[in-house]
């Protein structure tokens, strides 16, 4: 039999395909899995796979194990170490990029200086009585030693 549209299929392939079609399928191969099917579990599995594949997952994993220095000097020294390091493999290079990025952000945050103290503006608007008035009121009371 000559095919109208050539598919590039060889004679051997054709024979094998026909044999497969003729062979009856065992019931055991199409049996239901042990775990019952549910969309929720499927979504969870897909999300987990996505998380593993994504770059964000790697960033979180690399940054999680990194302890940020408390002072600016220590942070700069650490950045110098990371910059000087030459990782051989690709994952090491990626980790280096992630860590140096995170450290740079941390150095920027440290170099901003302390936050301004909160100002109680209502205290500025609150008036105090004059000292001479307070002194005069005090002088009006009888002496404590006399009573």
């Amino acid at each position, binding site marked *: 039999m000559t095919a109208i549209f050539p598919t590039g299929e060889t004679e051997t392939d054709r024979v094998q395909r026909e044999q497969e079609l003729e062979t009856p399928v065992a019931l055991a191969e199409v049996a239901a899995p042990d775990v019952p099917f549910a969309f929720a579990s499927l979504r969870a599995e897909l999300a987990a796979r996505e998380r593993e594949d994504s770059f964000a997952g790697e960033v979180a994993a690399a940054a999680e194990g990194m302890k940020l220095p408390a002072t600016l000097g220590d942070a700069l020294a650490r950045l110098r170490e990371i910059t000087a390091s030459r990782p051989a493999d690709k994952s090491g290079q990626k980790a280096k990029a992630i860590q140096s990025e995170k450290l740079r952000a941390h150095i920027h945050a440290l170099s901003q200086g302390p936050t301004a103290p909160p100002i109680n503006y209502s205290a500025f608007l609150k*008036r105090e*009585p*004059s000292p001479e008035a307070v002194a005069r*009121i005090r002088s009006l009371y009888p002496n*404590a030693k006399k009573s």
Partner: protein
Amino acid sequence: MSPNLKQTIMERVRRESGAELKSCLAAFASHASLMQELSARSLLPGTAKLVLEKMRAEPLPDASPEKLLCHAKILADLQAVADNKTVQNEARRTANKKFLEVEPAVNALELAVTSSLERQTAEAVQAEREFFEGHGLPWEPTSLSKLPQSLAVQSASFRSGKAQILALGGTGYVPRLSMSDFGALVADH
């Protein structure tokens, strides 16, 4: 030690306007004593209420019966003043009237100081002319004649206080006078 030009100028101003300076200081002192008296008696607008609030917030230490009776009397007196707007307005009016009474003395002092400085400027300009003419040069102002002009005295606290009193038309503003306006003129007072 070379003589300080500014000190020399101000000493002469003080010598030439001594009477005006004395009367101005007396007027300022009179106003200050009245303000102190009104403030001590909590008669100025709002002060009695402030003192009452402070007294109510703080507990009375060593509250003997005599002290408590005295406390009650003081509170009643302050409450009477705090409730009576007329009394407070009268106190403000008295203080502001005294404030405006200072004006002739301030004007006289400013005039005397300005005249003295002008005389000194004219003398400095004459000296500069003679100096430049001796060298065959045209006259030009130097720091000798510029300095007296820059030392003009004006009482900023009085001017602003007067503007506030007259502009607000008798609302609760009670300005104060400051001797620091006269700067080096009253440095030793």
